[in-house]
């Protein structure tokens, strides 16, 4: 069912630690996945994407892992910085459909 609520799960980390944010996606036919970062009062900002023919993709300080068997996506942020504090959303696309389906979001709080 839908995962909607006013209270986002929060991940609190110390500056310099690694962060792992998880997402369970909804549709086994989804073949393109994106992680977005949203700061307060702003629009979603692209971080990294991955296609279903891959299980891992790395960017600068970020890594996305995809487990299609259990429909699970994760975002790893290395050496987390205060500027990483934001809400992180995963989004999925089903080939042939002109829309993204967003997950519920996780708030990342980085403490100095």
């Amino acid at each position, binding site marked *: 069912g839908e*995962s*909607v*609520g*006013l*209270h*986002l799960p929060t991940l609190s980390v110390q500056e310099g630690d690694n962060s792992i944010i998880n997402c369970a996606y909804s549709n086994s036919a989804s*073949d*393109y996945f*994106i992680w*977005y970062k949203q700061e307060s*009062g*702003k*629009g*979603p*900002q*692209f971080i990294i*994407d991955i296609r279903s023919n891959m299980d891992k993709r790395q960017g600068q300080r970020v890594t996305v892992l995809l487990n299609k068997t259990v429909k699970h996506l994760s975002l790893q942020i290395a050496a987390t910085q205060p500027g990483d504090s934001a809400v992180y*959303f995963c*989004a999925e*696309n*089903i*080939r*042939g*459909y*002109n*829309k*993204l*389906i*967003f*997950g*519920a*979001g996780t708030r990342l709080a980085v403490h100095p």
Partner: protein
Amino acid sequence: EPEVTQTPSHQVTQMGQEVILRCVPISNHLYFYWYRQILGQKVEFLVSFYNNEISEKSEIFDDQFSVERPDGSNFTLKIRSTKLEDSAMYFCASTRRQPSQETQYFGPGTRLLVL
């Protein structure tokens, strides 16, 4: 770097009034989208637009909503008779190709408050 822009950044309106939210997508993009985000909740798809017609819409996008690309640069969302529950952030996005082929780039949003 080119980006999606939206105006106004904030809009306050009375229930029952019409509002038009404006977006300027990235110039060489061909697919356009509107999403909304109620405070504290996830981003929800409203509508996608390609080749001057709606290509997909959600259940939220009822007869009170319409979209238009009045010229070569603007993409608008009109809410004909606003309701209290229309209060949300509205985001425009665009892509050059289909969303299964590349990332959607989002604008900064318009915060709509219906009183």
